[in-house]
């Protein structure tokens, strides 16, 4: 999970800030304008980092909102008078935000490659809307003759045509934007966004409506980009359709990656570096000066002229070299040399006076459930009842449809027919996050925790799922309650306290599987669906987890798939045997062991010999 910036990063950022504050005292008009442009670009690219680096959505159409923000200033500015800044800013944010909401509701449906292409296409749609029509001057662009002014009554507070005032305004806007995002990603809302980036199905299975979260992230990023665009239009007082185009979007991605995606400060550094490199490559005199360090003056001048003439080609090579050599960007270098980030120490929690009452476990009943893939019927007319507070094992040869069965129960797959009732409520065909909210939690065949997060952070996310609204920006509310749930879950699942603050990727395989169970407990699920929780565990770990399952059945209903026959025969209260998608038998372990059909179909030699 995104940690607070390290001391070295804070030092770098403060140094840059000090430099920027001092700039108007020694920099010329050009320098001020250049710096303002860089800072506005900085706001634009950190808003993109919220999508790319934090939420994992690679948007190739983010300039749409930047451009709309710029045009919004044109729309709100009277022809020959100043716009009211107090209106211009909300208008830009609102316009970009509303368009982001509309576009986002479609694009967020897609993933990966599709998301990239679809955002690109929508960006181009916005571009062609301004390019092909006569809105705001069409291809020629349009001028904003007078810059916005902020005034209360007759008292003028700020005028954007004052270069220095505008510069400081942009600086303040960048600093506030950075602090805002830094705060946002650490709220319960932001933590879920980070979870989605690393493992969206898991977040969905915990009960988070990932669509809503991603859409919210998309709208916030769009609104911020709109704000940046409005400031950008105020630099030159000119807007053109190209501002919305895919090149702008592409360059923004460049800066994010160049600086280091997912760090928030990285993209700002990326914007600075990119702008400086571009400016240098465009200037033959600066290039000559650089080249003359390693060659004689005439050659340097000749080469400088050539490079400056084709500066965008040089820029292309620079970017390729940067991607290949430093895939994690500038921030990657800083983090590498700064060592592992310090993580916040867990808070002391006041022990709660009232004893947590044992919540009631839930019953799951399946009737005539089928799921087909094309012609293949993976689950075929299964009817079975799993009463509460018991451990129910599902066994059967691989390919018997066990995992499909669990996927249908958890909502990851829709049933072809049949019904699934949790207590008395029908949950068949509902979305995973809705099923999860009703108290059904699941684990996966492959370990499916959020590897870059600590064990405690994983559980905190799960605990948060008890109240999964995307509009949760406060850390305080419900915090004690959730922290207690996390502690209890870690303890119940047997994760040693000294391991709880290690990244999940550094835990052993067995611990990761225990963490997965801990997440389910923390999420408050009352019925646990576990897909091979013992896979890859040694004998002691197996023994420990089996005992844990027995213990958990005191206030949970547990349904698990398992191949370890010894363990499941010992642990389960009932066994359900699936073969080729059909229910072959269901009953107590002893009955199953003595069932001739089961022995022949599944247990083979072992069953025939009848060994324990």
């Amino acid at each position, binding site marked *: 999970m995104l940690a607070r910036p390290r001391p070295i990063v804070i030092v770098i950022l403060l140094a840059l800030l000090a430099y920027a504050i001092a700039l108007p005292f020694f920099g010329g008009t050009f320098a001020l304008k250049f710096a303002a442009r860089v800072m506005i670009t900085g706001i634009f690219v950190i808003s993109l980092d919220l999508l790319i680096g934090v939420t994992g959505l690679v948007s190739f159409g983010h300039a749409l909102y930047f451009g709309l923000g710029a045009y919004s200033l044109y729309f709100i500015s009277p022809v020959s008078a100043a716009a009211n800044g107090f209106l211009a800013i909300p208008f830009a944010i609102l316009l970009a935000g509303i368009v982001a909401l509309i576009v986002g509701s479609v694009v967020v*449906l897609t*993933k990966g490659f599709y998301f*990239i*292409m679809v955002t*690109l296409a929508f960006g181009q749609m916005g571009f062609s809307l301004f390019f*092909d029509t006569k809105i705001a001057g069409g291809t020629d662009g349009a001028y904003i003759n007078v810059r916005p002014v902020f005034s209360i009554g007759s008292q003028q507070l700020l005028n954007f045509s004052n270069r220095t005032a505008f510069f400081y305004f942009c600086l303040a806007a960048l600093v506030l934007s950075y602090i805002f995002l830094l705060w946002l990603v650490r709220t319960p809302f932001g933590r879920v966004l980070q979870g989605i980036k690393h493992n969206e199905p898991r977040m969905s299975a915990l009960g988070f409506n990932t669509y809503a979260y991603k859409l919210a992230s998309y709208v916030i990023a769009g609104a911020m980009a709109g704000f940046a665009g409005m400031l950008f239009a105020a630099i030159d007082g000119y807007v053109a359709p190209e501002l919305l185009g*895919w090149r702008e979007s592409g360059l923004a991605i460049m800066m994010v990656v160049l600086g280091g995606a997912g760090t928030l400060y990285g993209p700002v550094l990326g914007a600075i570096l990119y702008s400086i490199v571009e400016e240098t490559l465009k200037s033959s005199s600066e290039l000559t000066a650089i080249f003359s360090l390693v060659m004689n003056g005439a050659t340097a001048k000749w080469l400088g002229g050539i490079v400056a003439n084709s500066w965008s080609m040089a820029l*292309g090579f620079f970017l390729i070299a940067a991607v290949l050599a430093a895939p994690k960007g500038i921030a990657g270098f800083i983090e590498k040399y700064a060592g592992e980030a310090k993580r916040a120490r867990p808070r002391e929690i006041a022990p709660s006076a009232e004893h947590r009452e044992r919540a009631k476990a839930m019953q799951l009943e399946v009737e005539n459930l089928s799921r087909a893939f094309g012609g293949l019927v993976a689950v075929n007319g299964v009817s079975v009842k799993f009463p509460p507070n018991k451990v129910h094992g599902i066994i059967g040869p691989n390919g018997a449809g066990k995992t499909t069965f669990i996927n249908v129960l958890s909502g990851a797959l829709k049933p072809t027919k049949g019904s699934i009732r949790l207590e008395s409520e029908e949950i068949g065909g509902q979305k995973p996050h809705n099923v999860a909210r009703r108290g059904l939690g699941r684990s996966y065949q492959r370990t499916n925790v959020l590897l870059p997060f600590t064990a405690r952070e994983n559980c905190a996310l799960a605990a948060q799922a008890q109240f999964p609204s995307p509009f949760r920006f406060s850390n305080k509310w419900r915090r004690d309650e959730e922290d207690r749930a996390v502690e209890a879950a870690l303890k119940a699942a047997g994760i040693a306290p000294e391991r709880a603050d290690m990244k999940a990727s550094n835990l052993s395989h067995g611990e990761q599987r225990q963490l997965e169970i801990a997440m389910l407990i923390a999420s408050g699920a009352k019925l646990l669906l576990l897909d091979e929780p013992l896979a890859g565990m040694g004998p002691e770990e197996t023994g420990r987890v089996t005992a844990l399952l027995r213990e958990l059945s005191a206030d949970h209903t547990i349904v698990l798939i398992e191949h370890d026959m010894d363990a499941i025969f010992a642990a389960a209260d009932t066994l359900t045997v699936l073969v080729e998608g059909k229910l072959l038998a269901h009953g107590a372990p002893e009955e199953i062991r003595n069932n001739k059909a089961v022995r022949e179909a599944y247990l083979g030699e072992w069953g025939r010999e009848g060994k324990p």
Partner: protein
Amino acid sequence: MDLVLIQLLNGVQYGLLIFLAASGLTLVFGIMGVINLSHGSFYMLGAYGALTLTQFTGDIFLSLALGVPLAFLFGVIIEWLFIRHLYDRDHLQQVLLTFALILIFNEAQKLLWGSYPHSVPVPGYLQGGVKISALLTYPYYRIAVAAFCVAIALAMMFVIQKTRIGRIIRAGESNREMVEALGIDSRLLFRFVFAAGAALAATAGIVASPLESVYPGIGEPVLIISFVVVVIGGIGSIKGAFVGALLIGVADALGKVYFPAFSSSIVYALMAAVLIARPGGLFGRAA
């Protein structure tokens, strides 16, 4: 009515041309898993290459015969220089590197051919057109282009369904690792597929060059439209690219008649509609 007919014909012909470009894009992503933003640059280089070659050969079809192998070779070089570093990297870095390639190709185009638009002559024997009504004719060259594109599409379907390389390509779409495990060097496969994709885009650029002027950035709209086609058709599906390209071509052409100001928006709206109904595209596996 005649105008609608002409636009419809243009739409089909444009769609067929876009199919050439989009099929290359969909193959490269479907098999190699690489997002190639520089795909439009191969179209541009095809168009400019046709300009230069036709100055020597005098005939666009001779230029085509020379240009396609050159484009294939160029694709091999670009794959070797840049693209092969991207196979085990994420989408973000692929986007970045191929975007940087666009900057390089565009600048190279400016250095070699300058910033002014050029035109490529239609060969003498294809001047004129079919009379549709008293006032309107439909140019022979456009008919020839449409026929050529259909021939290429059929040839591609034949290669993919009936030949060994086609089997390898189909297999590569479903299980790259198994292709490697069965003795086919995936590095060579990828190089071939990338070069074939580049050659397809260049082919489109070459045959399109006499249709409109050749100008800087000519490949970029083609890239974007190809993306839309791939999304509509479903990633990796040649059939999907074909249907998607025709849909886009016709929608664009009719849009130009009925909603001239919003014709490009119509194309994107069509894409959005397909995505909402079928997030994996018309012929794609569910995303």
